[in-house]
């Protein structure tokens, strides 16, 4: 188990790369119930002025927290999670899209036994999420 006292602000705790394909988007649409066609139909995406099919923002958010969950080892220790959607992730029909997540310690609170983990999520060299922060509990289990 990770002890909050051992963490240093700015320390990198996890990093991972994920590939989104059109299949990923269809799978997320079914799992989440978000069937907005801009996430699977090029003709609809183009008709509303987009360059093509985009990943669901909530898919990017949902995947981006996973390196943190793997690091703490227990998804129930996520106490809070917030993001701003700043840039879209365009998913090419054949190549897909690759996103990279870098997780660093943003702040620690030994009193509450919590840490704020800040995520940098990039696609094609640009960040796609702003103020992406995960609050995790590191309290020892009773």
């Amino acid at each position: 188990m990770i002890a909050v006292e051992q963490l240093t602000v700015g320390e990198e705790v996890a990093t991972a790369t994920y590939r989104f394909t059109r299949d990923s988007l269809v799978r997320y649409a079914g799992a989440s119930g978000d069937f907005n066609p801009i996430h699977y139909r090029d003709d609809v995406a183009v008709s509303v002025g987009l360059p093509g099919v985009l990943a669901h923002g909530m898919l990017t958010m949902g995947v981006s927290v996973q390196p943190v969950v793997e690091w703490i080892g227990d998804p129930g220790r996520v106490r809070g999670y917030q993001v701003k959607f700043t840039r879209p992730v365009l998913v090419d029909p054949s190549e897909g899209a690759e996103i990279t997540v870098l997780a660093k310690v943003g702040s620690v609170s030994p009193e509450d036994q919590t840490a704020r983990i800040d995520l940098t999520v990039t696609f094609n060299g640009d960040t796609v999420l702003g103020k992406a922060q995960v609050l995790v509990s590191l309290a020892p289990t009773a």
Partner: protein
Amino acid sequence: MAVNPDIVGRSCEPTEPYAVGREKVREFARAVMATSPIHTDVAAARAAGYTDIVAPPTFAVVVQEKTLAQLLAMPGANIDFSRVVHGSQDFTFTRPIVAGDELTAVLTVESVKSLAGNSMVTAVSQITDATGAHVVTATSTLVVRADDV
């Protein structure tokens, strides 16, 4: 037309109870590329102290979404769905969602702001379990783009 600022403070009716099923949790976990066995393996979840498998943090949006549908349909709100973009999202948990939960959500409009012709609507959905205890608060800011000129 801009979003009607008079909707600030308005709440919707509680949503019908949403029954969190194991297979839905597993399906969602796979969709968000989650690897923790606590999402999929009941024995692993119980060993970690939970009553059943634990949903990924962003699963809460599945329950929240029913309240956002109410918001978009709110009489007099004047929210054009075709112009809505998801601006930001926040989840604040009292405890994680687990399979077997029956969850109800109540949305309240927190704010309506105008910025460069766009409207920004912030809505807070309180999600509670069958006993009425708080599970998670899901907050979304929706950006409603200005009409084309």
